[in-house]
């Protein structure tokens, strides 16, 4: 059981990662990001289930909660970028250039 879940979560994690890496729009990357976090929570939950006690899932729950908070902030940032009149794409956001 856990083998399947872990392989699924690994696959999903990599897909999420690919999503972030390959897409140029911020929102698409955001989705990939969320996916990665959820997959991590899933893997955490799965291992927690092996221990048979309830505490394990607390961590998974908290991860979910934090991910939700992060999602909100992420979306606000993206909106803030758009509202300042710039396309929400990675190419245009080069302020950090060394």
């Amino acid at each position: 059981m856990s083998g399947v879940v872990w392989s699924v979560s690994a696959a999903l994690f990599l897909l999420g990662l690919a999503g972030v890496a390959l897409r140029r729009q911020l929102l698409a990357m955001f989705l990939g990001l969320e996916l990665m976090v959820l997959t991590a929570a899933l893997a955490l939950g799965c291992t927690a289930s092996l221990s048979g006690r309830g505490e394990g899932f607390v961590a998974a729950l908290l991860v979910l909660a934090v991910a939700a908070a992060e999602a909100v902030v992420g979306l606000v940032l993206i909106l803030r970028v758009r509202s300042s009149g710039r396309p929400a794409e990675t190419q245009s956001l080069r302020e950090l250039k060394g």
Partner: protein
Amino acid sequence: MSSLPPAALLLFLAPLAALAAAFFIMRPWKPQWTHVPILISCGVVTAAAAYLAAMVYTGRGADVTLYTWMFAGKWSVPFGVRIDGIGVSVLCMVALVGALIQLYSVGYMKGDPGFSRFIMLLHLFYLSMIGLLVSNNYVQFYLFWELVGACSYFLIGFWSHKEAARKAAMQAFLTLRLADFGLMLAVLLIIVQFRDTHFALFHAVRFFPSMYHPLIGLLILWAAAGKSALFPLYFWLPDAMEGPTPVSALMHAATMVTAGIFLLVRSWPLISAVPGLPGLIAVVGAVTAIFAAVLAFTQTDLKRILAYSTVSHLGLMAFAVGLGQITAAVFHLVTHGFFKATLFLCAGNIAHASGKSAVSVSEVGGLWRRMPLTFAAFAIAAFSLAGIWPCAGFFSKDAILDAAFERGGWAWAAGLAIAAASAAYIFRMLFLTFFGPRPEQSPARSLHEAPPVMAVPVAFLALGALAVGWAREDLVAMLFCGRQSAVAAPSLPELAPKVAAAGLGLAALAAGVVFALTMGAPSWDWHWRRRRPGLAAAFAGDLGWRRVVAGFVARTLRVADVVGRVWDHETWDAAIEKTATACRALSRGGSAMASGGLSESLWWLMIGAAALLAWAGLR
């Protein structure tokens, strides 16, 4: 020997005092009177020289160290004075001729703006030449040797606005410098070999054979060749005529150029110890004498003819030294000083009168009526140069011819050739300058006799050119008493009548032939130049030797340019500068990594993570 004779000190102090007075007092106060202290010092020096000659003549030489100049550890170099036969005899000639020429130059340079500078420079040269003659070791000799070279640079280039004068001065100094390379190296090797450079110690030198000997001898010959204009390095002397005539007379006839021969005579013990060297010196001397005589015959400028004649006579002196006859060489050196100075001063009179510094043969002619005194002096000196009987030249040249006759073979032939050739070019100059103006010649109207201040020294010198020969025995006696300097130098050979007759006959024959040629219908002198311009150009360029020298100079400058510009600046320095730009490029490359793009940084993140995972996995 005995304590230092005061006269010897005077030789140094008088000129130094005069120069100081002239530079600090006369020049700012009354520049046109700067020659007063200078002429006084000349008088004092001549008197001192005469006194020293008398002293040496009566058998009391001197070799005293004034103070220790350089020292380190066990080695030290003294600064001293040496009064001995050779030194004093040449000293007398230099002192007298120098004094007369400086008197003459007062008249000659009267109007020149740089008058005081000229007089002082000439006197500084006078001092250094005298210093050279009385110094008692090689290092001190080298000091005055270089000082004389430096003075010649400033005097040849005195009229520095003239391009030719500047070029000639530079050429002269660098050639002398090239020659001094030999002397400095020789002095170094002498010190390495004998720990001391005192002239006195060289008597017993033949008993320490060592591998450095031939090298030292060759280097000394190389230095003498440079200074006394022997074959390889003679080309600077004819160009040095760009300087004012008193300079040419004093330096490039009587004194400076004889320093090389003086060096050979001073180091005769060293040279005679090296087997093949005297022979080489004789060959070099003979070649120079004949080569220069031929060139003198084809020159058109008065002073250049005399310059080549000086080169020829220096070759003759070297020839005499090479034959082992250093007494004959010194005797000829003294007589040559007198008659060559007279010839130059006569040329100076002509140039001064015509207002130009260089007078060519076609601008003179038939001057015997307008400049009688100059003509008379010139004639005496010309006879002396050609070796005609009453004049001094006859005795000294005859001594050399005797030595050549004894050596026989090629030496005798060379001696006769030199005698004939020197008679030829001097009579050509005499006829062309003073006898009836040839159709091709157009003497300037303003040619008239020189003012007394110039005429009197010329007269005295002509008298010297006449009388010195007769003082033959006294000079020989002086050479041998006093300090025992020469290693058993053979005494002057007796006047063999046969040799004298041969010499005189040749001189007369040459005079007749030249008279026919120059005074003939179409004057030969211009005739062959028109018909054979190529040949004329070849002779003008010293038969190609000038191109060789110019090539050498050009090659050195090219090497300097390659080393200086190409190697140093464009490759090596550029390489170092490039390291700087390379670092900057590296930093720019580095900053490109931080491109601020989200995706790029993510890629780097993943690569890093993957690497870490792989490493963790492998361990």
